C-alpha cells in the first residue's frame, strides 16, 4: 500500500542499523507501555473503504438535494470546475510552507496574489497569508489590538450583530489575558451601531463590527469609525467578501483591520471546514500583523521572486515574544480563493454579488407579504435578512425539510430576544422557482 519495503529490503535495512528486528528499534520506550494493543477495527482495502464512506455520506442530505436558504456564516455558492482542477495538482497540495523559496515560487507567488486580491477587496494596504477561519481571524484582530496598545487599553467592544460564534471564539482567545473587559454585545441585537458609541472610551482597544452584519444588514459606518478613532481605538470589521464586490470597501469607511470568512470565495461548505480566515490592515500595522507574509524581491541575478518576509514576528524565531502562535494556516484554501477570484474577475464577482442581492430582495419581498411573516429590516441588506415568524422556527424548518427545503437559521438559538426569528440567506444558487417554492411552502404552513 503506502509502505514500499519488501521483506528482503527490510532485512537489509535492519542489518545496516544493527538491530535484529523492528521491535528492537524501540528499546527506549518503557517496556511496560511498549506495543499496546490498539482496539480498532481491522484495516480495509481501498475498494472497501470507498463503499463504507459512500454509505456514511448517504446518511446525510446535502445542499445538492435540498434547496438551501441557510447561511449564518457559511454560504452556498457556485464553484467553477477550474478551481478544483487546479487545487488537485499535487505540486500545490503536497507541498508545505514555502520555507525554501527557490523551489516554492509557485506557492509564494500565489500567496502574493492572494494578498493582493484581499487588499483589493477590503480596501486595505496589507493582507497576511490567512488564518484558520473568520472567527479566529476576528480573535487575532483582538490579540493584535491588545499588543498594539501594549496591554494598556483593556476594553474590547463587540457589536451584538457580530456572528455569535466569532464573539465566542474571540472570548476564548482573550481569556489568557488577565483584566480585560470584552463587552458591548449584551444589548438589543438589532440596534444600530450608534448604540455602542457611549461605551467607547479612552480605555477601549478595539471595536469589532460586522459588514454585512450577522443579520445581513449593511450601512455606511464612516461616522461610527470616526467616533472610534476619536477615542484612539481601533476599528475591526468582519466582512463578507462577496458583498465587497458590490459595496463600498471597509477600508474606504475607516476600518483599521478587516477580517472575514473567505469560504464564499470558491470553498465548498464541507460541514464547516476547512475554510479561510482573511486578515488585512492599514500599512501602519504591518509589523504587528500575525501569521505569514509574502514579499517581492529578486535573486542574485536580479530575477523577480517571492519570499516569506518579516519572519522575525513569528513563533519559530520569537518564541514566547511572537505576535501569535500561528504556524500552519489555510494555504490551500487561500489558493482556492485566489483561483476563484481570478476566474470570476472584476465582472464575475460583481455579477455574483448582484445576483445574490436581487434574489434575496425578491425573496424578502415575497416572504414579507405572507400573512404572519414580517420583515424585520428597516434599512438595506445584502443577501441575508431577518423574518419574524408566526411560530417556532424549529417547527417551520421541520416542515420545510419535509418539502426538501433547508430553512433559515433560528436566531433564537443565540439571541433569546429573537425567538421565532429566522435568518434567511439567498445566493445565486437559488432559482426563482426555488424561492417561489419556499414561499408557497411557508404559506401552506400558515394555513394549516
Amino acid at each position, binding site marked *: 500500500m503506502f*509502505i514500499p519495503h519488501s521483506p528482503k529490503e527490510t532485512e537489509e535495512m535492519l542489518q545496516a542499523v544493527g538491530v535484529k528486528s*523492528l521491535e528492537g528499534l524501540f528499546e*527506549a520506550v*518503557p517496556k511496560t507501555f511498549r*506495543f*499496546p494493543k490498539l482496539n*480498532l*477495527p481491522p484495516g480495509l*482495502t481501498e475498494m472497501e*473503504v470507498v463503499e463504507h464512506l459512500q454509505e456514511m455520506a*448517504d446518511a446525510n442530505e*446535502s445542499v445538492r438535494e435540498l434547496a438551501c436558504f*441557510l447561511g449564518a456564516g457559511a454560504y452556498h455558492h457556485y464553484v*467553477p470546475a*477550474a478551481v478544483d482542477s487546479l487545487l488537485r495538482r*499535487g505540486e*500545490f*497540495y503536497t*507541498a*508545505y*510552507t514555502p*520555507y525554501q523559496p527557490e*523551489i*516554492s515560487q*509557485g506557492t509564494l507567488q500565489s*500567496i502574493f*496574489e492572494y494578498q493582493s486580491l484581499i487588499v483589493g477587496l477590503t480596501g486595505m*494596504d*496589507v*493582507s497576511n497569508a490567512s488564518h*484558520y*477561519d473568520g*472567527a*479566529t481571524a476576528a480573535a487575532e484582530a483582538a490579540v493584535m489590538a491588545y499588543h498594539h496598545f501594549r496591554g494598556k487599553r483593556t476594553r474590547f467592544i463587540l457589536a451584538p450583530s457580530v456572528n455569535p*460564534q466569532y464573539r465566542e*471564539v474571540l472570548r476564548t482567545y482573550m481569556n489568557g489575558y488577565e483584566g480585560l473587559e470584552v463587552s458591548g454585545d449584551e444589548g438589543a441585537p438589532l440596534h444600530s451601531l450608534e448604540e455602542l458609541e457611549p461605551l467607547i472610551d479612552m480605555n477601549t482597544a478595539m471595536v469589532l463590527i460586522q459588514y454585512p452584519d450577522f443579520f445581513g444588514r449593511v450601512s455606511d459606518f464612516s461616522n461610527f469609525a470616526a467616533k472610534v478613532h476619536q477615542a484612539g481605538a481601533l476599528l475591526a470589521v468582519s466582512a463578507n467578501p462577496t458583498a465587497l464586490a458590490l*459595496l463600498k470597501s471597509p477600508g474606504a469607511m475607516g476600518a483599521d483591520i478587516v477580517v472575514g470568512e473567505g469560504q464564499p470565495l470558491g470553498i465548498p*461548505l*464541507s460541514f464547516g*471546514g*476547512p*475554510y479561510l480566515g482573511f486578515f488585512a490592515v492599514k*500599512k501602519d500595522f504591518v509589523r504587528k500583523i500575525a501569521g505569514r507574509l509574502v*514579499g*517581492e524581491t*529578486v*535573486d542574485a541575478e536580479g530575477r*523577480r521572486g517571492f*519570499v516569506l518576509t*518579516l519572519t522575525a514576528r513569528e513563533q519559530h*524565531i520569537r518564541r514566547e515574544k511572537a505576535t501569535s502562535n*500561528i504556524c*500552519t*494556516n489555510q*494555504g*490551500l484554501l487561500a489558493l482556492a480563493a485566489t483561483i476563484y477570484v*481570478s476566474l470570476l474577475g472584476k*465582472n464575475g464577482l460583481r455579477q455574483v454579488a448582484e445576483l445574490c442581492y*436581487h434574489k434575496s430582495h425578491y425573496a424578502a419581498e415575497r416572504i414579507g407579504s405572507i400573512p404572519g411573516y414580517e420583515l424585520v429590516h428597516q434599512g438595506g441588506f445584502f443577501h441575508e435578512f431577518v423574518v419574524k415568524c408566526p411560530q417556532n422556527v424549529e417547527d417551520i424548518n421541520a416542515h420545510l425539510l419535509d418539502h426538501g427545503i433547508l430553512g433559515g437559521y433560528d436566531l433564537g438559538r443565540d439571541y433569546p430576544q429573537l425567538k421565532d426569528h429566522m435568518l434567511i440567506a439567498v445566493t*445565486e444558487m437559488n432559482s426563482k422557482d426555488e424561492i417561489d417554492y419556499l414561499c408557497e411552502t411557508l404559506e401552506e404552513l400558515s394555513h394549516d
Partner: protein
Amino acid sequence: MIEPTIYELSSPGRIGVRFPEPDVPPAELPASLLREELPLPELAEMDVIRHFTRLSQKNYCIDYGLYPLGSCTMKYNPKINEEAARIPGFAWTHPLQPIETVQGNLALMYELQEYIKEIGGFAAVSLQPAAGAQGEFTGVMIIRAYHKSRGDEKRTKMLIPDSAHGTNPATSAMSGYEVVSLPTDSRGNVDLAALRTVADDTVAGLMLTNPNTLGLFDENVCDVAGIIHECGGLVYGDGANMNALLGIAKPGELGIDVMHFNLHKTFSTPHGGGGPGSGPVGVGEQLVDFLPGPIVTVLEEGDDEVAPLFGLSMPKKTIGRVKSFHGQFGMLVRAYTYITMHGPDGLRKISEYAVLNANYLLARLGGKYHLPYKRLCMHEFVVEGVWPDAPDIHALDVAKRLMDYDFHPPTNYFPLIVHEALMIEPTETENKQTLDKFAEVLVKIAEEAHTQPELLKNAPHNTPVGRMDEVKAAKELVLCCWLPETPA
C-alpha cells in the same frame, strides 16, 4: 522564466466565468453604498489554468520527490483521501443543518474521536482545533481552566524543554503563562535534576514533545510526568511527532494529561502548501469536561437494526469554542479514511517503518555529519551541517546544495540547541532506493564542502530562481501587486 502576476496578465473586458442573468425582477441597488473601484484582474479561464499550472511547476512537492522536513512528517498523501473528502454527501453539507440531516458526518466524527482516543490512550477527544498550534493553545487553556476550577490561582509557570517547537512558548505566552526553559541532558532527555529544582506549586504544567525534536524518545518520560504530577502540575504532550508512536506507546499511558494530534502529519492529510492542518486534542479523565466543543455524542443508542442518533454537545466546563463550527471537517474525512484503511496492525507498521527509515538513513551517512546525541533515533534525527575543517560552510549551504540534486532540504537551524542543525525525517513511505540515493548525495555534499565549497555557497544552480535577497524583501516590503495608495 518569470511568470507574470494575475494583475499583469489581466486584460480589461475579459471574462472567465459567465453566470445566468437574474430570473427575478431586479431590486434597486443602494446607490450611496456602491463601490466605485474594484481592483480585481480580468482573465479568461485558460489564462487562469495556464498561470496556476505554470506556478505549480515551480514547486517541489511530495508527489515529485523526497521532502524530508524534520518535524513535519511529509509522508505520501493517498489519493483516496482526496476522493473521500469530495464525496458530495460530505462536501456539500452546511455546518448548521439539523442533526437529523447530517448523521453520516456525525458518525464519522464520532468514530474518529473514538479512534484517536484509542490510539492516544485518552478518555475524550475534541476535533475542533484547526491546526497543531491551535491544538496547543487549546491544551494550555484546558490546563489553565483546570487549575482555576480548583481555585488554584498561584500557578503561573509553564515549563518547556529547550528543544521544543517555537509554537510551545508562543502558545504559553498567549495563554498568560510565564515560560521557564528546561535544559536537555547529555543523552538528549529532559534534564531531571534541573526539572526537580523548578518543580513547585507555581508550575501549571510542562509541555513535552516525545519523541523530542532531536528525534529521541525521552527515556525518563515517566519520571518527568511523575515529578510534574507530584507538584500538582499537568503534562501537555505536543503530538507533532506521533508518527513514531502509533501502536508503539500510548501517550496517555506514559503520563501525558492532554495532547494534540496533527492530522496533517501523522494521518496523511495533505500539507496544502501551508495548511489546512487539523489538531484534535485528547485528554485524560480529569480534563474531559474542559474540552472545547462541540463534540459529537450519542443521543440515542442504536442496535443491530437502527443506527444510533448522534448529536453535538458542549462539555460542562468547556474552555469555549476555538473556531467556528466543528473543526476542519474535510481533513477529518481524510484522516478517518487513512486510519480505517490501516487498522491496528497497519498503524503500528507505519511507526515501525518510519523509525526504520530514519535509522537506516542515519547509518548510511557513515559519520560524515556530526551527530550530537549518539543513540538510536525514532522517526527523525538531527545532525550538524558544519565541519571544523570547512569553516565557510553552513547548514544553509548544505540545504541549498541538496536542491541541485533534486531533493527537498531538511528542516535547518532547528532545534535551536543543535549548532547548525539539519533535522531529517524521511517518513515510512520512502523506499530504500530513494534513501540510498539521498544518503549518497548527502555524503557527496559533505565532500564538496571540503573540496569545492563554492559549489555549496552559490547553490542552488538549477532552480527557477536562485537565493533570494531577503533583506531587500524585508526593507522594501512589497506585499501586494501594487503599492499602497496607488491601486492598479
